[in-house]
């Protein structure tokens, strides 16, 4: 109940700041001035606020519990993305005057077809990124308040769509900057409290992982998805009502939303395809997908996707536009690296504590809820309740800020790039898209937030990253080249993901290249773009179109003819 209250107050405070932000903007005579006042620090806080999604707040710790310490490569890649952004994209993108990637496509290459294609890519990335946000909201709500999964998903979708359709069209900067501070505090303070309160025994166990083989005490497990358990020794478990159920040797299928209480001392049943927390290899700092046996390749795949994908995220690119000039945009990226680095020191703390205190979540298919499940394991009194509530609030802030930005970017792609329409249609697009994403999220309960989000990064890295990097740094890029490259990257990356989701089971390095296709789809997209461009001839204006992206704004105009440049 307390958790619900905190989540509700996060939504309320967000609304209040949003409304106040709008009022502050209106009071200035010229909206342009207000916008140019967005300092790099404020903007970096807003970028980080929008960027730290449910995947960062809950997903990474959940993946550490499930896959091992190697999952900490995800945040490294997430933060490194802003170095790539700083070096390659931030200042030229701001100087192009383009607001979204489809905008940039048209400004640099003058191709309406490329613009429409880019809008489709925005929708794919938006979908892959939004589904885990809504899914995790549903999962967290079902853990803290015992509601069914779908209730949380629908509530989350309704809250985001309503906020956006009613008032979210303006002045999001202050909201997102506030949410960054909120998330930082709500993540770091409970982490320190957990480490201090957990006791020396738990701390020692956390740094010396042992395989989760026996339940240390009576442990209730609520299965969030259908799970097949492989029981080695017969167990007498209990239902929620206290009825004994005997699990004989062999496989048992557990329906989603059922609960079993496993007695302390019983041997932990195995879950097909997943190794328990603390098993050999868990402590290795590399990512090995599905036991494929190629940890180096798996780690590199995630790093390529996350580092190169960041620059193509539609909701992040948008935020850089609120900087007054290219210099401030670059500065924003540098501060963002700093702010994210502070945040990303802590998911590992939750991860290793989670593997000791709540390893049973891996049976339930709910490792993403490890962060919010931890406080009650350390303290069952008011402190535990309080910190559960705080972390739930932080998780909601995470999912809210990201979803708002993504939904707006996706709605913009529909109502601005694909089917030009007015404000009314934009609102309609928001509601329609939210409905589609809610429906998708209802069937995505078994997919980890971190994995889904990495797919969004993979698609961005295979489509927008080559288009932006080559568009900004290579004058010979042509519109047909960009179209072919984006198409190749989009089809290859989404095709590989579709095969992973719906196709036959594969193993070995092929499994990695299908589940994390960045190592081949990114070079494929770059190569296609370069080769097709080289076959054609760039138009005469191609060189000035590229060079003007690198022309710094005059800090103080020495001559009259530069006057209008500073207004940009």
């Amino acid at each position, binding site marked *: 109940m307390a958790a619900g209250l905190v989540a509700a107050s996060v939504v309320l405070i967000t609304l209040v700041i949003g409304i106040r932000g709008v009022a502050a903007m209106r009071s200035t005579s010229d*909206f342009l001035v207000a*916008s140019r006042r967005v300092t790099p620090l404020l903007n970096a806080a807003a970028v980080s606020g929008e960027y730290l999604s449910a995947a960062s707040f809950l997903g990474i710790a959940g993946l550490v519990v499930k896959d091992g*310490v*190697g999952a*900490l*490569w995800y945040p*490294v890649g997430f*933060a*490194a993305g802003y*170095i790539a952004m*700083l*070096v*390659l994209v931030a200042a030229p993108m701001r100087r192009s*005057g383009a*607001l979204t990637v489809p905008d940039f496509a048209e400004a640099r290459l*003058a191709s309406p077809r490329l613009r429409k294609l880019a809008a489709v890519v925005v929708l794919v990335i938006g979908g892959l990124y939004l589904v885990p946000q809504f899914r995790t909201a549903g999962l967290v709500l079902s853990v803290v308040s015992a509601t069914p999964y779908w209730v949380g998903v629908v509530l989350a979708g309704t809250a985001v769509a309503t906020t956006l359709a009613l008032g*979210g*069209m*303006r*002045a999001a*900067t202050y909201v997102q900057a506030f949410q960054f501070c909120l998330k930082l505090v709500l993540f770091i303070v409970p982490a320190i409290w957990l480490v201090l309160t957990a006791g020396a025994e738990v701390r020692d166990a956390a*740094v010396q992982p042992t395989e989760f083989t026996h339940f240390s005490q009576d442990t209730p497990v609520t299965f969030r998805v259908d799970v097949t358990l492989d029981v080695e020794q017969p167990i007498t478990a209990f239902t929620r009502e206290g009825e004994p159920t005997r699990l004989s040797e062999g496989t048992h299928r557990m329906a989603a939303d059922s609960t079993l209480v496993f007695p302390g001392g019983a041997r932990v049943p195995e879950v097909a395809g997943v190794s328990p927390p603390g098993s050999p290899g868990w*402590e*290795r*700092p*590399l990512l090995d997908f599905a036991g494929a046996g190629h*940890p*180096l390749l798996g*780690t*590199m795949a995630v*790093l390529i996707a996350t*580092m190169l994908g960041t620059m193509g995220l539609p909701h992040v690119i948008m*935020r850089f*536009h609120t900087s007054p000039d290219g*210099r401030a945009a*670059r500065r924003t990226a*540098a501060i963002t*690296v*700093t702010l994210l*680095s*502070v945040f990303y*020191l802590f998911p*590992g703390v939750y991860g290793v504590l989670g593997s000791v205190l709540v390893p049973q979540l891996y049976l339930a298919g709910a490792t993403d809820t490890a962060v919010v499940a931890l406080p009650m394991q350390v303290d069952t009194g008011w402190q535990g309740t309080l910190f559960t509530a705080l972390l739930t609030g932080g998780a909601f802030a995470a999912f809210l800020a990201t979803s708002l930005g993504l939904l*707006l970017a996706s709605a*913009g792609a529909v109502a*601005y790039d694909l089917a*030009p*329409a*007015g404000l009314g249609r*934009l609102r309609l697009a928001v509601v329609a898209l939210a409905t589609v994403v809610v429906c998708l999220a209802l069937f995505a309960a078994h997919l980890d937030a971190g994995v889904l989000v990495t797919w969004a990064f993979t698609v961005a890295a295979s489509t927008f990253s080559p288009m932006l990097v080559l568009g900004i*740094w290579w004058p010979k890029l042509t519109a047909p080249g960009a179209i072919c490259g984006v198409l190749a990257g989009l089809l290859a990356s989404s095709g590989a993901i579709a095969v992973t989701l719906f196709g036959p089971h594969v193993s070995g390095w092929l499994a990695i290249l299908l589940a994390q296709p960045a190592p081949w789809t990114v070079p494929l997209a770059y190569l296609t773009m370069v080769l097709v461009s080289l076959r054609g001839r760039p138009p005469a*204006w191609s060189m*000035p179109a590229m*060079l*003007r992206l*690198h*022309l*710094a704004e005059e800090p103080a105009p020495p001559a009259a*003819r530069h006057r209008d440049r500073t207004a*940009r």
Partner: protein
Amino acid sequence: MNKTASKRVAVMSPQTRLAHSRRRLRGPWRTPRLDPGDADRAQRAYRRQRSRGITALAATALLLFGLPVVFTMLPALTEVRLLGVRVSWLLLAVLPYPIMVGLAWWQLRRAEAAEDPGERDG
């Protein structure tokens, strides 16, 4: 960029711009042009930023892709402990962040220095 291309882009919040989008939809696309002076300046800035950017990216790539190789070559790092914590955990969970922050600010300073008036005209 100045007299010749008079298309001005208003700076506003992304949200506002989207909401206002229908007013500037499908405006005529203008050929980008640069003054000869500006073109020279832009060409020099482009080259400088490119060479500096490549160094920074190479350093980041070395850190990111080198560390997994180190972990593969030296599995013993997982056995050695510092203050009770495995060294490889510290190398992964803590070390990259200060280095990346340092890289970001180093590159920021170099990119800004490349745009300073003295450097720009020289």
